[in-house]
């Protein structure tokens, strides 16, 4: 491995800008770090270069731990977005800078310089000053300069940002050729997904300081695991569907699921439908793909090779089909069609069409949508507008529904609404929080979020479960939440009794198991803490310790629920309860 990052964390003013990133990059690999601005990708690159330190974690280059090694001793070449050429030096002096520092003889320097100039096709430009070169040529000089001292790793920080499209294309090709010829391990940082696709052997996608997913470009595009990656890499329609024993039921269509569900019962899932996988036709019978619903053409944009459509879905049939957008506005479906498809069936704005889907990818995310539940419609609406909830929903591009249960919390009273609970049910935390939670959990709600009225996005998410059968669901949901919230994850292990008790070694093992499972199955890095004593009391105490915390709690057993969790659901902080019955 050329570059190994192990749990690298970088804090800025107390908040993580790079959050627990672990990554292995192989010899000669061209790795692209892709993400929106502010996702921490540049900071991570600077940490690899040694220009900024890390607060936690380890960085190794070619097996050498360089975490505390100065930038000038790391043997990396770095290319900046704005070239950063030494303006008062000629091209030759710029390129030879690293060689002069190393006191190389003039003859050897000249020879190396000629070699590099040939490599970046700038022969004969030795005597020019940077100001006399075009942007593309300056960046070529910067690449040559970064390679002069034969670094083991080449780092490129948005190197094409300041160039126009044509030059960019050309320089991309040059850099890829140089990289192949030298076989040098390269990391490129960019926010341009097209660039990432064009250059990468492997792409890693970052958001909010976390490395969300990595893989080969094709793999990531066709099988993303998270909403963010699905929508950031190309366009995507996120559609809520139901997983049934027969397959994925999406709109009117039932599509065979590519990946089998892990034996779980019927539940709501989030699916990704790429715009090019949507088919439109005059009638349902003309569709060659499975019929989804009907809709109205809202907009037709001609973009050359492709045509882009926006379709308004028929609200009568499946008004809440799309995961994002709230219920009031009609959701829109994005479609792209080739010339060939356009010739087959021409569409105009205002036309009613039948919509089919050719391929559906189910996101493995356990969080689909939210339903705000309260005793009266007004209270449910108020809860729906809660700050943290709307923020979460916006980040997860999902919708918030409402549900009124007049008898919420009254024991023995039946459910008013349908007896299936879809997605995550949200209630207001407070004195009656625990009672209402038990009521809903006993009637089939599986994931339940109790929100204090003034809750904000947490800085730390505490994770704990009572009972082993809730473990994997709790970890999966924690990982999903933490992908949308820039917070630190902490697993709380609680061992009954005191530190000296014989249960101690067992508790430690549980802790380590939890940590490694989170990492292996969910890509979730968490810190661990071990506490001794009574479970609920320890949780309540730990939550009271600092503001800005959230608890994700897995439970299996509902006996005495109200008494046990009364204190926790009082409203000190948001609590997400994951209920999975004992297997």
């Amino acid at each position, binding site marked *: 491995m050329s570059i190994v990052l192990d749990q690298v964390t970088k804090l800025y003013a107390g908040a993580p800008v790079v959050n627990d990133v672990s990554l292995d990059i192989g010899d000669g690999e061209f790795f692209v770090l892709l993400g929106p601005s502010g996702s921490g990708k540049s900071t991570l690159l600077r940490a690899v270069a040694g220009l900024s330190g890390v607060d936690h974690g380890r960085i190794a280059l070619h097996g050498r731990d360089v975490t505390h090694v100065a930038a*000038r001793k*790391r043997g990396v*070449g*770095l290319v*900046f977005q704005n070239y*950063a050429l*030494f303006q008062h030096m000629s091209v030759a002096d710029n390129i030879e800078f690293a060689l002069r520092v190393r006191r190389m003889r003039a003859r050897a320097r000249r020879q190396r310089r000629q070699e590099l100039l040939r490599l970046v096709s700038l022969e004969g430009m030795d*005597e020019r000053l940077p100001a006399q070169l075009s942007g593309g040529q300056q960046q070529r000089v910067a690449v040559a*300069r*970064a390679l002069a001292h034969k670094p083991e790793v080449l780092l490129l920080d948005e190197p094409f940002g300041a160039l126009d499209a044509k030059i960019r294309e050309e320089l991309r090709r040059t850099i890829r050729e140089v990289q192949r010829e030298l076989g040098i391990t390269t990391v490129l940082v960019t926010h341009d997904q097209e660039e990432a696709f064009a250059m990468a052997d492997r792409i890693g996608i970052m958001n909010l300081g976390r490395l969300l997913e990595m893989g080969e470009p094709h793999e990531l595009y066709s099988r993303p695991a998270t909403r963010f990656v699905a929508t950031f890499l190309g366009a995507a329609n996120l559609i809520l569907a139901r997983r049934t024993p027969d397959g994925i039921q999406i709109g009117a269509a039932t599509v065979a699921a590519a990946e089998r569900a892990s034996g779980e019962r019927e539940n709501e899932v989030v699916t990704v439908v790429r715009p090019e996988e949507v088919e439109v036709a005059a009638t349902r019978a003309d569709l060659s793909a499975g019929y989804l619903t009907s809709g109205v053409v809202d907009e037709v944009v001609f973009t050359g090779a492709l045509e882009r459509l926006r379709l308004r879905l028929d609200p009568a049939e499946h008004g809440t089909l799309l995961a994002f957008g709230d219920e009031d506005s009609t959701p829109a479906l994005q479609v792209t069609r080739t010339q060939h498809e356009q010739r087959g069936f021409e569409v105009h704005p205002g036309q009613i069409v039948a919509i089919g889907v050719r391929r559906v990818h189910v996101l493995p995310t356990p969080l689909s949508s939210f339903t705000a539940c309260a005793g009266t419609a007004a209270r449910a609406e108020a809860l729906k507008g809660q700050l943290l909830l709307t923020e979460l929903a916006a980040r997860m591009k999902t919708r918030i529904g409402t549900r009124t249960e007049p008898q919420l919390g009254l024991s023995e009273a039946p459910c008013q609404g349908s007896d299936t609970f879809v997605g995550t049910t949200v209630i207001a935390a407070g004195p009656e929080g625990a009672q209402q939670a038990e009521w809903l959990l006993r009637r089939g709600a599986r994931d339940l979020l109790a929100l204090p009225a003034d809750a904000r996005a947490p800085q730390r998410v505490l994770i704990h479960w009572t009972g082993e059968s809730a473990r994997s669901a709790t970890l999966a949901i924690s990982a999903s939440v933490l992908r949308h919230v820039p917070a630190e994850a902490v697993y709380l292990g609680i061992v009954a009794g005191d530190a000296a008790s014989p249960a101690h070694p067992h508790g430690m093992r549980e802790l380590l198991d939890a940590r490694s499972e989170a990492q292996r199955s969910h890509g979730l890095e968490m810190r661990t803490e071990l506490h001794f004593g009574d479970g609920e009391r320890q949780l309540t105490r730990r939550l009271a310790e600092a503001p800005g915390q959230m608890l994700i709690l897995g439970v299996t057993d509902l006996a005495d629920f109200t008494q046990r969790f009364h204190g926790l659901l009082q409203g000190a902080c948001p609590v997400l309860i994951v209920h999975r019955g004992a297997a």
Partner: protein
Amino acid sequence: MSFRQPSILPGFGLTFGFTTLFLSIIVLLPLAALVLSAASMHWADFVNTVFSARAIGSYRLSFGASLLAASINLVFGFIIAWTLVRYEFPGRKIIDALIDMPFALPTAVSGIALTTVFAQNGWIGQYLEPLGIKVAYTWIGVTLALTLISMPFTVRAVQPALLEVQRDLEEAAETLGASRLYAFRRIILPTVLPAILTGFTLSFARAVGEYGSVIFIAGNLPMKTEITPLLIVIHLEQFDYQGAAALGLVMLVISFVMLLAINLIQGWGRRRHVGLAR
């Protein structure tokens, strides 16, 4: 150069004419009067006045102390500018504003203030006295006053140039293996050197012409702590206008030669940089 770019100000003819006229009235005419006045002296009188031991002593002090003051400002002014540009700290704005204070203060006030502090019974002077260091009424005091009043010039000349030096350049040098000192010497210094020299020149010019603040702290002992501008005033008070003009002419010539020399060095340095990049 057959056609000129149109610009928002009226044409070249008008602006050049104005420049010439303005410079003539404000700068050249008074200087000419000075030369003429000195020229009306007898040669022997001129030599006597200009090369008298007292005059030579004053030249040495005036130019020596000014050069020293400009050199001190070169180092410390650079450090101040660096601190203000590179670091963010509480009170930075206030310190930034304080730099300009010597500009705004009547120089006599600076002189009186310095004397109060550095006189033998002053706040600092009383502690320096036992150490055998006398500041007020010696050449040290003169240098101190000149340093104070010429300091803003260096800082204000270097500051914008330092702002121009991007962090990226240092980081690039660092990843290429350069130590901090090496990067400073080869990257930062060459980039800001012209500005530093400009600051030095301005400081020096200001110090040579200074009068108000120095006379309070200098003590004005002939041959020892008497600066040339003061000698000129003494001549004037004795109604010896020609003598004053003669001394003024000498100052003018020496200043001009020194400023020209610095400018030449600056130009040569710039060429050498481009030349180095052969």
